[in-house]
């Protein structure tokens, strides 16, 4: 039975309790209001942050590429230093930490920080830690130390961390407490995933009253493979040494890049840019001299995504696609199989009466060539003929920029949107651009503006056109799959935009067969691939040799496909001032393909000078 009386008793107890609370609130808020406000103003709360460990970066097979290890650091609590004990602490520090100069020690005591970092205790004997316990102004905090295990192997992919600047402090909320921020590479692109929340230490009058533990950053597993990366770097280094030996250039040949991309997904298996650097230097503190030295060689640039080069003949596949798709062939041919005669030069006239002669790289000519032969031998005349046809048919009409449209559809002159910062987009020139340049960069263009000769330059990847290795790789991938999407290193947090390109499987097979001709007898890269014997029957590629202005040696390009019957990887190699693509970039790629096909590696040897 329910008892109303007893329920009233309970509510009465509650009422008494509640009146006690009201009394307390009244005392606090009305009677003691002013007094307590004074108390609060005299309270002195301060916060100090200890960085959170960053997430690890792992390769495809789970090998650690970057890790953050907690190490004990000695800190000096400034609030506990006074005139009486300052000399004792100064003496203790200079006695126990020999390598610190007196100036550095003085700086510790003049610092504005609540806690001043003195040293990493792991670098000293353990009994020092026992001695420290007697000094109340010393405090040991575990702080993470970033280590890049493979040193310079991943300098451009992983990047490095550094002290945040003003903009970074605003952009990344944890940067202030973590005292570091990703400066380049994946460390920057995935800063929000990798960085954790710093530990927050609250002090009142110098005493620690609360420690909020840090939340570590998340790990990321990326698509690169340590072993592939190692082979790629070795091969590129060999290629650069070889180029220096073979060419008598004004400048030292030292820059180059390789991208190895999986064809089906677009993920990056290896990405190397030379020269490189050891990102651990930034953790330990890099000297101004070292920094300047590295900066002078452009070691901080990732040429795979930032190097802007005219692509030379590797660009001919764009015209190849256009020719098949639009049915535009040289004057005397009506289809891709029909042969025309290449005599080593092309003379032609324009409507304005001007007449010009263009010389092919092979003065005696390529003889009878059709589209396949033109790609195999990298015949310029054939492609110039296509450009002339476009110019004569569509010049000064809306369809004039047909070749540019095809290039842009493959992703040239726009960012590939790979998950790395500071990518560059390059240029595909057209009439509009030249009109703009007349005003902004008059030294680069003639007063007449865009002419047929410019289109002829463009079709063989010369002139004002610039591309990055990643763009070239992604464009070939689009041609071989019909899908254009952003290449990536870490796919869990990325929106991959797939765009279908109208390419038939018939065309893909046609193109693969012709790329195969390049690495086989009669092809420009045959000499470089000869060591692989019968395997060349299933390998393909395209050489490129881009001319540079002035005394500069040519830029050496090669785009390789590991297998024609089952294409898995695209290998794009570029060596700045490396000379002919078939001589330097092709053998570098060949060694990488040997690795990808699990063959024995043979050294990079000089190929054949073509183009």
């Amino acid at each position, binding site marked *: *039975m*329910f*008892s*109303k009386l*007893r*329920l009233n*008793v*309970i*509510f009465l107890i*509650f009422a008494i*309790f*509640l009146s*006690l*609370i*009201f009394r*307390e*609130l*009244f005392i*606090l*808020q*009305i009677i*003691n*209001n002013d*007094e*307590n*406000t004074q*108390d*609060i*103003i005299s*309270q002195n*709360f301060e916060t100090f942050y200890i960085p959170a460990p960053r997430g690890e970066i792992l390769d495809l097979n789970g090998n650690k590429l970057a890790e953050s290890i907690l190490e004990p650091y000695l800190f000096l609590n400034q609030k506990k230093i006074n005139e009486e004990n300052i000399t004792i602490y100064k003496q203790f520090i200079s006695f126990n930490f020999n390598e610190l100069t007196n100036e550095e020690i003085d700086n510790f005591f003049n610092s504005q920080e609540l806690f001043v970092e003195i040293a990493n205790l792991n670098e000293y004997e353990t009994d020092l830690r026992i001695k420290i316990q007697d000094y109340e102004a010393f405090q040991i905090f575990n702080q993470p130390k970033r280590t890049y295990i493979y040193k310079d192997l991943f300098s451009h992919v992983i990047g490095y961390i550094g002290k945040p600047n003003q903009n970074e402090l605003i952009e990344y909320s944890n940067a202030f407490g973590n005292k570091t921020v990703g400066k380049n590479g994946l460390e920057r692109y995935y800063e929000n995933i990798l960085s954790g929340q710093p530990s927050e230490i*609250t002090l*009142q009058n110098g005493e620690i*009253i*609360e420690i909020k533990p840090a939340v570590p950053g998340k790990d990321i597993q990326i698509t690169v493979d340590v072993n592939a990366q190692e082979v790629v770097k070795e091969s590129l280094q060999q290629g650069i040494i070889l180029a220096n030996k073979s060419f008598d250039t004004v400048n030292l040949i030292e820059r180059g890049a390789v991208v190895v991309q999986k064809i089906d997904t677009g993920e990056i298996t290896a990405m190397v840019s030379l020269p490189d650097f050891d990102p651990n230097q930034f953790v330990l503190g890099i000297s101004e001299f070292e920094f300047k030295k590295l900066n002078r060689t452009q070691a901080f640039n990732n040429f795979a995504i930032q190097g802007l080069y005219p692509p030379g003949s590797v660009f001919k596949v764009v015209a190849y696609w256009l020719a098949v798709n639009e049915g535009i062939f040289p004057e005397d041919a009506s289809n891709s199989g029909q042969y025309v005669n290449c005599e080593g030069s092309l003379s032609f006239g324009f409507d304005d009466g001007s007449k010009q002669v263009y010389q092919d790289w092979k003065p005696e000519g390529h003889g009878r060539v059709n589209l396949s032969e033109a790609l195999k031998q990298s015949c310029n005349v054939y492609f110039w003929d296509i450009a002339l046809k476009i110019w004569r048919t569509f010049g000064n009409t809306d369809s004039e920029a047909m070749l540019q449209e095809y290039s842009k559809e493959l992703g040239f002159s726009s960012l590939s949107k790979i998950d790395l910062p500071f990518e560059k987009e390059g240029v595909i020139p057209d009439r509009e651009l030249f009109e703009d340049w007349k005003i902004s960069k008059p030294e680069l263009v003639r007063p007449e503006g865009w002419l047929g000769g410019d289109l002829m330059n463009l079709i063989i990847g010369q002139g004002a056109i610039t591309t990055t290795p990643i763009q070239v790789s992604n464009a070939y991938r689009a041609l071989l799959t019909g899908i254009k999407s952003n290449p990536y290193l870490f796919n869990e947090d990325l929106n991959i935009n797939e765009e279908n390109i109208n390419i038939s499987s018939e065309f893909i097979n046609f193109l693969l067969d012709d790329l195969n001709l390049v690495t086989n007898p009669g092809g420009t890269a045959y000499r470089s691939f000869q060591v692989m014997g019968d395997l060349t029957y299933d390998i393909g590629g395209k050489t490129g040799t881009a001319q540079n202005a002035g005394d500069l040696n040519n830029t050496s390009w090669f785009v390789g496909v590991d297998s024609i019957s089952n294409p898995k990887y695209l290998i794009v190699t570029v060596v700045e001032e490396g000379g002919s693509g078939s001589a330097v970039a092709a053998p570098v790629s060949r060694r990488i393909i040997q690795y990808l096909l699990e063959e024995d590696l043979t050294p990079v040897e000089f190929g054949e000078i073509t183009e």
Partner: protein
Amino acid sequence: MINRRITILGPEGTNVYVIFQYLIFCVISWFTLFNITNEIGLDIQNVLVRQITFTLLGLTVFFLFTYVSISNIFALSNVLMISSTILLIGVLFTVESLGARRRYDLGVFDFQPSEFTKIAFVIFLAAVISQKRNNLLGLALILSNILLVYSQPDLGTTIILLSVVLGMYFISDVKLKTLLAFLIMMFVSFFILLEFDLVSSFQVQRITDFYSAEIQDFSQKQSRLQISLGGFLGDNLSNTENISIFVPVQTTDFIFSSFAKSYGFIGCITLLFLWIFFGFRVYSLIITTNSEFEKFLLAGFMILLYLQILINIATVVGLIPLTGDPFPLLSLGGSSIIAVSTIFGIINRIFIENNQVI
């Protein structure tokens, strides 16, 4: 039973008064949390965004229970109690965080089974007492739940559960002698536990410290100062210089101190009178309803809610030692909001079934 017309807000509409009160408490919580963080952002880590999400979840639960008839709740009392026991056993196998195993990590928020236990407890006790089926199994379930919560360890919830048991038996016509015997037994067992070191000395010390030394817990000292800052009108109305003060767990257990700072003595009185007013409405329902089960259910919920409020405020103003209970509907926290929403939903249903639509 009469066939009831089901409308969008429950059979015969919803009780405007209950939903109004519920929403007022939620909105007060939003304003208080906004005063603490002072930031607006659509980040799930933002406390205001979290609380609004929890409130929406809570509203859903509120209406869900509006559709569950009281006879069904009565029928489910045993099932609820057994599932509560299973959940409490399960939580002992989770990962320890901050020295206790209290929650299941559900990604977006943590689920605290002890919040569920509180509701299951009231429903089960109401069923047992109204039916007078005082069997051993029921007693065993009740005691095991209290012990399981205690072993998390969660002293605050243990005290609340014990008080709910005592309170609900007290309002039935059980002999006072029996209750007294129960109380004595509790004290004896507490000292036995103490003797065998089964009560952590830390917990005992906290209690003895509180009443022996002048120094209170640091957070309580800070919260008292913060309450003072509110004055008569609070920060928001009186245009005084904004002085900030550091109080730990500001958004959860100590949210009342921040509320008191923002809205002053006036605000505190208003909030507490809203709850007292709600109490009177429910009290009149307890008197008028004919069902014994509903009487005990409502009384149990009232004891549960008011006990939590009183303990929370008493802790924050420093009248009792630190326990760590949330303030119903004011504190940030998914489990607590969903639990209180369930209680409000059931109360709403009882109002409807008694045709007390206002």
